[in-house]
Every structure is written in C-alpha cells, then in structure tokens.
C-alpha cells in the first residue's frame, strides 16, 4: 500500500510508468501555466502540480481540484520546451485519483465523466439529453441549461431516447476488460 501522506518515490514511478513521461525533465519554467486557459481556476497551476509529483506528494496532487480543471486542450503539451506531455500527465493523475478514490472538492467534472461513460456503456453511443438530465439531477443544478432544451426539442435536434447499437456487447466487453486492467 502506498502512503498517501509522506513523500513517496513509488508514486513518482507509478506516474512515470503510467504516463510514459519523465517528470524530472521538467525544469519549472512555467510555460505550461503561462499558456493554460484554465489556470485562472486553479489554485495549483500546472507547473506546480508537476513539482508536487516530482516531490512524490501523492495526496496533495491527487486531491487537488486543479487536475479536474484541465480540459485536455493540449496547449501545454504543444509548447513544453522539454517535451513533457503535460496533458497526458493530467490524464494519469485523474486516472490515479479515480483508482485511489481521492476526490478534489470540485467533482462536477468527475461526475460528468461517470455519467457520460455510463451512457456509452449502456447504448454504445453518448445520449446528449440523457446525460445532461442525469448530470443536472445528480449535481443538484436541476435547471442548468433548461432554457436550451425546448427549442432543441422543437427543432428535432435532440431525441429523448437513444437506440442501442448492434455491437453493444463489444462495447460492454471493452468497458469490463478496461476496468480490470492497469493502464500499462
């Protein structure tokens, strides 16, 4: 069992193996943070998250809301002068956070992730309205974007039901197998 509080070299290794990135390559220039469109929402900016990983501080990293504010726009990855794939690191940290069941205080994105994937697992395709309805219900933002719904229903742009694809069993088996495997 990995310690969640003390600096932990195993954590650094786990992140590196999963992401295929060498965190030691980062020399903290801050270019990722400078270009990050979401940095204004983050208490721990991207370069600071990497520094915390370098120090092996698992719990502060995995419980930081910042990792959920990354939308994978890949600006950091594109610009890093040391070719660190920062967006990929963020994916890895979210994946580890899911597995360690450590949730940052901002968990709306995580909730959306679960609901979205559940829709894909059920039907093979994402059902927009179903996902939004369930997200609103479970997040407590009951009427979020409700004013958008009626015009779309009138235009026939959203259907209240989603058909299953024929190969739904393939999709479900992908979900089942992925759940039982480690990502490396």
């Amino acid at each position, binding site marked *: 069992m990995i310690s969640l509080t003390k600096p932990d070299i195993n954590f650094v290794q786990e992140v590196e193996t999963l992401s295929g990135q060498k965190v030691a390559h980062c020399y903290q220039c801050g270019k990722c943070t400078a270009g990050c469109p979401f940095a204004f929402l983050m208490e721990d900016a991207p370069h600071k998250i990497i520094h915390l990983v370098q120090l092996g501080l698992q719990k502060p990293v995995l419980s930081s809301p910042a990792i959920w504010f990354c939308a994978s726009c890949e600006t950091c990855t594109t610009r890093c002068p040391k070719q660190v794939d920062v967006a990929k690191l963020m994916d890895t940290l979210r994946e580890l956070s899911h597995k360690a069941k450590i949730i940052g205080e901002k968990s709306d994105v995580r909730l959306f992730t*679960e609901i979205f994937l559940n829709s894909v697992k059920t039907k093979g395709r994402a059902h927009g309205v179903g996902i939004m309805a369930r997200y609103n219900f479970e997040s407590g933002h009951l009427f979020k974007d409700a004013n958008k719904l009626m015009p779309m229903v009138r235009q026939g742009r959203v259907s209240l039901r989603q058909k299953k694809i024929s190969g739904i069993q393939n999709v479900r088996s*992908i979900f089942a197998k992925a759940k039982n495997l480690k*990502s490396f």
Partner: protein
Amino acid sequence: MSKFAYYPGCTLEQLAQEYDESARLVGKFLGLEFTELPDWSCCGATPSHHKNYLLSLALAARNLILTEEQGLDLVAPCPACSNRFKTAHHDLISDFDLLKKLRQKFDLNYRGEIGIFSLLEVISNLPFDLIREKIVRPLDRLRVVPYYGCFLVRPPEVTQFDDPENPTSLDNLMELIGAQVVPSEYKTECCGGVLGITNNQVISKLSGDILETAQKAGAQAIVVACPLCHQNLDLKQDVARSGRNLKPMPVFYFTQLMGLAFGINPKDLGIPKHTVNPMRLTNSLIGVRS
C-alpha cells in the same frame, strides 16, 4: 482517394445535426464519397481518457477496426472524434507492446493501416480549383473570424495537420469562397471544451474572450469546424456574452458557408437551427431581403 468511411459521432447525430447535414451535402458537391461507418460506437471522447487510458484506446480502436474492414480511410467532421482516433492510432503504432496488449486483452486487432482525417483536413487538401469551380455565389460581403480551437491542430505530432500556433487552412478556405478573413489572436485558444458543459464560468471567460476579440476586430461572424466549439460559442452565447457589452454574433460551420457559396439553400444546410439567429446575416450574404 475521394472515398471515405464517414464517422458522424454522437454530437453530429443529435445536437449538431446541421453540421452533419451540411458536411454530407458539401462533400457530395465536391465529389467526395462518404459511406457512413456501419454500427459505429462513441469514440470515447474526453471522458474516456480522463478516466482510463486503455478504455480510451479500445473505444477508439473498435471504430478504427470497423474502418479497416471497409478498406477505406476515415473522415470525422467532429475534431474531438478525429483527435481521439488520431491519438489512439499514434499511440498504438508507436508502441508495439500496447498494440499487443489490445490484441490479447481486448481481442481488438488493429493493423494501423488507415488514414484518419478531420473533415477540414480532407476539404482543405482538395485542389482549390476544384472548389473554386463550384462557387456560384461568393460571400464577398462577409467579414469572418476563422476559429480553430484545440483538437484540430494540437498536439502536432498526433494531428499532423496545419500549424499548431497559427493555422491557416480555414482562413484559406474562407478567402477562397470570397469572404474577408478577420485575423484573431484567439484562433487557437480553447473555448472551454468539455468543461463548458459543467462550468459556466469557463464559458463566460474563454468563449467570451473569443467573441469579444472577434467583434472588436470588426467581424460579423465566427466560423468553426467543431461542434463542441459551436455549442460553447452559439448555444451558450448568452453565458459567454454576459457582463460584456457585446452584440449577438452568428457562428457558422465552415461547411455551411461553403454550401452557401455553392448556391445551396440555407435551410438545407441547417442554418436556421442555430441559437443566435443567423438568418439576417445569411440573407444579406446571398442577396435575399429579410
């Protein structure tokens, strides 16, 4: 090769039907043969790789294998989808162990022998003379900001398309159909992406900045190639404009503007379906009194 397996994706099947309709129509006009990929499933989108890397690879690979069975290259109008497919392809062909793992554990046998393209990529790679000869109605009264967003051009090792900091493919297409391209330093800044769905603060800052710079630069409209960008900039424009002194600004898909220039009826291109009313501008572009 002008024959492609066409992957609409979940968004084009529902919310962004007008992108699907205009993409198929314009494709046909340009002699591109699109056959919808049979029994396609979700590409995995952002949530799959936010949760589980192998899941994201396998969900994408299912569709890539279906494409291989068709013996065709793949075109996806939605850049979120094309980016997922290109990422999975890139990762799988550069890591034999990963490819083997997908084969052994998921029974997914991907050979990696197909081409994967976004629709913008396919159309902007066509000979410009072929496009030019279809134009019957140049949009020479339109001042437009081409907005690329993230997924089309980043990261460049994966997308293999255009310039990640200053792409010009959409600019060139707009100039080709007669429009005046208004430069914007926000052309590749993120609109908020998937976070726009859960967080309005993201839209009001990021999409708001994109709209504001476009309007201040004198543009009448924004043109996009991504349904997620369209959702944040058009469907949620009230949120994006809030607290800013901005006028409503129509947001078009590039296929809709190309279709107008080809003489296709705005209704067939799904233009009236947008949230910010684009009909006044559309009618003025095609010389119809509204």
